[in-house]
């Protein structure tokens, strides 16, 4: 079976997003060319993007299998699965960070977030990771709060 090309996946994802966008903007007034209203540009853009995605999907779909871009990533030798797992773990920490920061505060969220990433990328040992995470958290808190006056959420310390 022919493998889905990265371009096809990307075009389909953007097409779905532009469809959702068009649904969201459907109630905005369009106006007329002489007096364009709030929805004039968003609606034209949404349909235009959908059309472009359709063209891209069509082009990829009709391209012979040998010339279609296939596999992930296209140009370089594929990264080992462990590489993707590491990136995925770091991404998960990034998603969790704003949630944690809001509720637990900057210090706890940063300390734990850094520790999680250090372990995900296998930075030295557990004690080394804990030490590095604690030191970076302390320095960044001192620099940004103490010197630059940034007010982070205090969370449970507030």
């Amino acid at each position, binding site marked *: 079976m022919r493998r889905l090309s990265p371009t096809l996946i990307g*075009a389909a994802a953007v097409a779905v997003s532009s469809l959702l966008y068009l649904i969201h903007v459907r109630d905005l007034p369009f106006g007329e060319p002489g007096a364009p209203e709030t929805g004039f540009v968003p609606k034209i853009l949404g349909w235009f993007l959908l059309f472009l*995605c359709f063209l891209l999907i069509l082009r990829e779909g009709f391209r012979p299998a040998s010339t279609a871009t296939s596999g992930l990533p296209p140009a370089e030798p594929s*990264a080992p699965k462990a590489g993707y797992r590491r990136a995925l773990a770091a991404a998960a920490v990034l998603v969790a960070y704003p949630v944690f920061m809001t509720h637990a505060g900057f210090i706890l969220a940063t300390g734990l977030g850094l520790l999680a990433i250090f372990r995900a990328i*296998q930075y030295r040992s557990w004690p080394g990771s804990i030490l590095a995470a604690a030191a970076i958290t302390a320095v960044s808190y001192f620099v940004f709060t103490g010197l630059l006056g940034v*007010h982070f959420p205090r969370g449970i310390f507030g």
Partner: protein
Amino acid sequence: MEGLFYGFSVALTPMNLLVALIGAFLGTLVGVLPGIGPIGAMALLLGLTYGLPPVSALIMFAGIYYGSMYGGSTTSILLNIPGEPSSVVTTLDGYQMAKRGRGGAALFIAAVGSFVAGSIALILLTFMTQSLAQVALKFGPPEYFAIATFGLLVLSQLSGQGLLKSLVMVGVGLLLGTVGMDVVTGQPRIDFGFLALQKGIDFVPVAMGLFGIAEVLESIEKGLSEKQEVIKVRLRELLPTREETRRSIGPSLRASFLGFAVGLIPGPAAVISTFLSYTLERRISKRKEQFGHGAPEGVSGPEAANNSAAVGAFVPLLSLGIPFAPPTALLLSAMLIHGVTPGPLLLRDRPDIFWGVIASMYVGNFMLLLLNLPLVGLFIRILQAPMKLLMPVILLLCLIGAFAINNTVADIWIMVICGLGGYAFRKLDFPVAPLVLALVLGPMMEDSLRQSLMMSIGDFSIFWTRPISRVMLLIAVGVVAAPPIIQRIKGTRKAPGK
């Protein structure tokens, strides 16, 4: 010249000299790190300018920009890893020179070539920006819409990953640009139920996510080393031989003009200029066989070209208020954050900023020359820092930087989502530069389009009847349509001889 002298009186105050020095130094420092290019460096360091007065902030930010452009060459020469795409060509001969024990000379040639090109480009910038700004005072909404369309179409054609894919990314950027308040009526719209989105999507967290976070995630995926193997360079080894110097002068001068001209064109000008310069030098050289094996021309030309292109990119930004590439789009954002609107009125309304920033670039360019060579040892030490420690720190700086823009967690969310999106787009081989530029130009384009249509009572021919608008649109259509036509003509010529 009067304006430039006034600019020097602004740029040479102790405060502005200090911020130019800090900006140039920090830009170089972050630019040295492999993987963090000029856009990542600028996005990361933008937060440092928040507390400064507008003139000083923009002087510092301009310093960060050209400092980060300088920094990329160090990793190319000593590590064979280009710090940014415009340093890829430098690896070809720079690393070969370093392997032969001429790393110091290669760094010296790159630094002096960049300085010469930066200085020549600044002289061209000084005169060109002023003249263009005078012309731009006559521009109306149709002209601005046409210029922005021209910029996006040309960038899409030059992005290198296919026109259709780039146009899709332009569409995504324009769509994101519509989020938040209506630019004409001020009515809230398209906020997806989130209060934070009512003010629109800030460009800086998007750039940080697409360039900074995505880059770090990709580096983590590829695997990070504990310690980099760097070719060591001693201070006394920095001076090139007489032969190397002689061979570097011509390429630097040629690349200065070539780079500046390319910098005026929308798209990845710095990258294109390096390839053009390398190709030109190789073609006209009597020692073609040495290219790729450590020819000094292969270092001086491309390094001069990318710096000159970086300066050239300031022309449309300062004179028209329109950025043609992501780094200048970030500069535009920095200006807006500090309450400065770039464009033709900048020269009249804020001459201190217009001339101060230009004059500070002369000063900064000289500072970089003085800074970069003696500090080679420091940069090497930074390159030897374990990436497993550096990358999480860069992630943290991105997170803090995004939060510090408006002191809201919403900007962190935007950055994280864009970071994950940027990583996915990289994996799917979609270019992100058109998205970034479209996001910045989107609100201005919508405003210009709607105003133009209101002026013409809905007649779209307004874009055709006005000469400047017509010329820009014709060039844009030509740039988009020409390559497939040329390819087809070539194909039909080849076909009979098969």
